[in-house]
């Protein structure tokens, strides 16, 4: 099941508690992974555009995106990513507290690849990460990225 190379995952999340839980869930998962965290929308876009310290870094295979972010809102990040030809093919999974239909519809309209709500119970994150791993890294085929391609 394990992929030959480690999966590059960008988590855009301002809350360290959530970061901890996501990271914990991936640690307990089966996939070799490289989890990067951006604390706000601006940082996330800088990372994705390989600006500054991120110059030589390869693009992530998957983005986990919170909607409620400081500086640039998660929705705008989604819009920018999906509007950028070089980034548009990275799967973006929305991971948020909101269960509002309005948010759900908007995100899919902006070509989000999945919409996940943050779980309430202790084992919820593990179940989510398990599902992401088994679908995105075992079942689905992802596009390959060369570092600094733009």
């Amino acid at each position, binding site marked *: 099941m394990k992929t030959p190379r480690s999966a590059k995952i960008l988590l855009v999340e301002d*809350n360290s*508690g*959530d970061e901890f*839980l996501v990271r*914990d869930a991936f640690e307990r998962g089966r996939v070799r992974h490289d989890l990067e965290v951006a604390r706000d929308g601006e940082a996330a876009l800088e990372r994705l555009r390989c600006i500054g310290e991120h110059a030589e870094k390869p693009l992530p295979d998957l983005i986990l995106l919170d*909607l*409620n972010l400081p500086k640039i809102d998660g929705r705008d990040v989604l819009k920018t990513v999906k509007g950028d030809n070089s980034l548009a093919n990275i799967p973006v999974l929305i991971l*948020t*507290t*909101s*269960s*509002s239909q*309005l*948010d759900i519809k*908007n995100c899919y309209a902006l070509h989000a690849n999945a919409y996940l709500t*943050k*779980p*309430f*119970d*202790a*084992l*919820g*994150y593990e179940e989510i990460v398990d599902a992401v791993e088994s679908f995105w890294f075992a079942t689905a085929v992802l596009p390959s990225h060369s570092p600094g391609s733009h």
Partner: protein
Amino acid sequence: MRDLKANSIILIAYLISGAASFLLAIPPGFLAPVWLPGAIGLAAVLIIGYRALPAIALGMFILTLPYGLYALDAGLIRSLAGSLGLAAAAVLQAVIAKRLVHPDNRSDLAMETGLQLFRLIGYGAILASLCGAALASAWLVFGGFAPPQLDFTTAMLRNWAGNAVAGAALTPIILLLFASKRVSRTRKRIVALAFALLCSIGIGLFCLARVNAIERRDELFNAQVTEDHIAVQERLNGARRRLESLEGFFAASQDVTNDEFLTFVDIAFGQFDSVSSVHWLVPEESGSRSNHVVLAPADALQLEPGRAIMVAAERNLVSDYYFAGLPRLVDDLLASGLLAASALHGEGDQAWLALAIPAFSGRRVPESLAERREDLQGVAIGIFRIDVILTRAFQHERSVYNYRVSGLGSGGSTIWTFGTVPDEPGLMTSRELPVGGQLWRIDYVATDRFLAAQQDWVSWAVIVVGLCFVSVLNALALLSTARTDLVQRLVDEKTAETLTLSRNLSLILEHAADAIIGLDAEGHGVLVNPAAAKLLGYEPEEMTRRDVHDLIHPVDMEGRPHGRDTCPLVLRSQASDQYSGIDRFRRRDGSDFFAEFSTEVIRDSDGRSLGDVTIMRDITERLEVEADKERFIERLTRANEELERFAFVASHDLQEPLRLISNFTGLLASRYNDKLDETGRTYIHHTLNATSRMQTLITDLLAYGRLNSDADIMKSDVDLAQLASSTLDTLGPSVQAARDHIRIGALPVVRGNSARLGQLLQNLIGNAVKFQPAGQEPEVALEARDLGNSWEIAVIDNGIGIRREYREQIFMPFKRLHSPDSYPGSGMGLAICRKIVESHGGVLTVSDHQPGGSIFRFTLPKSGPDSLSGTDSGPDNPIQ
């Protein structure tokens, strides 16, 4: 009642005019030359229609009945029949006239146009009268009710002429005076006066002609009577002479045989056919001559001996005394020595006269009785038919007279009469006649035929032609006055209209709530109503003849001075003839106000501007109020939005840390379970319970807030039965367990939002199952009731029920009646339910269910807007 009155008036007019017509009859008692009731009947039937028929029928009946009874002496039954026929004919004539003239309304009877007159006279008077006359005359003549000398054609023509002339002359006047209200008094006066004048002249001429004619007729009659009376005398003298010739005959021959006597009588009286018998008497002592007491052959002379009565002097002698009484007669003759006469009265219309003449031997009549007795040679007696004597004497037709012969006694008393005359003879003259010592009087009475032959065509012509003339003049007067009347009426109407209009206009101007200002072409005030003066603070006269723009409109909306070139009050400078808007105006005291106004140019028929009229209303207050209102609404909206955003964000942000508490406590419980003692695990258990409850609270609060924010969710047709059934599937295990006890009755298809109604049912059914006493099986029923405009859905349970004092509280957010331990829940369920029902335009209430439990009832309108009428639509609040 009205009919009775109208009919009474018509009847009286009918009878009076009928009596007048009879007076005009020529001669009196004959058909009237002009039948005035015809005109009355025609006018009546045109004015009040067939309701006038009873009066016409009764009038005709009353008028003609006495004529039949007394003038024609026709007897009661025949008179009744004749009058009834005439009444029927009059009614038919009226009906025909009404049908022919056929006025559309009373105005058609105002006799204003030639056509109206033509219809009235041509159809109503002439044609209808022809029908009426034909019917009446046919009834009279062929029914045998008419005087014998009257034939059908004459009767019909005279009847027709009388009716038609009266109708043509009189009816237009009657209609003019009484039929139409729109005829002016002046016109009535003029026409009536002209008519009265013409009629007076006509009647005067008629009377003159009439008097003249009657005199002429009477003279003619008297002359004829005189002539004929002389002839009667001569006839009697002739009889006497013939009797005297007998004396000579017997003097010449002493021995006359009977045959010789008869031959002589035949010669003497041959042409004298009034003689019945001739006798020659000789005194008894000369018995040899007794054979000369001879009767002319009775059969030849039509005398029936033995039946005649001889009247000598004042004594009657029956036939048996005829011969026995002769000596007596002789005695009488001898006593008088003169001619003696006596009337012999027969039966029927025959009467005889006996003439006796004594013959003396000397030429002269001896003076003494003794001598006369001595000298008496014989007595010649002739018996004559009186009626034949008279009629043979009359040189004119016998039908000229009816006569009566009376024998007068001493002192003029009548002893006997022969012949009959009417009781009230129209024309009679009496003459006296001495006959053989008696005095007779003969009454000559003109017969109807004489009167008819002598009737006065001149006066007839006067009245008929005169009335025709009157009709024509009438028509001219009617038409010419109608034109004047029409013009006058138009002038009156227009004047009244103008007055009313100007009064109304000035009332409108005076009392209009809006200011009205009229400007002339120069922009100077010409008309300022009180409202305008009050609004602007000027007296009306202060604004007239002054430049109104300068006075009240020196600045524009923003308060900047502006010239009159752009002033909307002076529309000369504008492209359009009409302008309306809102602008700033200035009062006399310098204060400004805002007014809504509308200005329109007034143009003359050539399109030149005469100025304009402005109507304005002060809306300063309204503008302020509107501005206040707008500001208030804006503030309110903003406050609402902030509040909702606050609630939304607050509940959302509350959820974040709670979720993490829950997550980490969960991790603690799962990963450090073995490192914790029992107390620590209990703490964690309570912490998790608390976070779970708080999460429910926040979720429900969010859902409640979202009901506002998603106000425009669309409606569709929702089958409630199907929805209820699918809702049950989504409910938790407690509901599934009780599913057999949940009865879903017949539920309607309603218009609404499926998701929300689902939530509603979910909450209500969930509550019904949840709030049960421990150990009791829930019994839940859903029922629907049609309320006409809406449906009422009831959710009925057998649960713990709700006390009356809490029935309103339970719909408040977070309101709970029980601890979460006994009945879990956030306290938001019913608040959400009520909001859903209200957003559908319905009402949610709760009541008791006997013996235990509650009934939650909600209504849903059958038709409503297609989007939910949520409360103010909040900001688009996504959950972050």
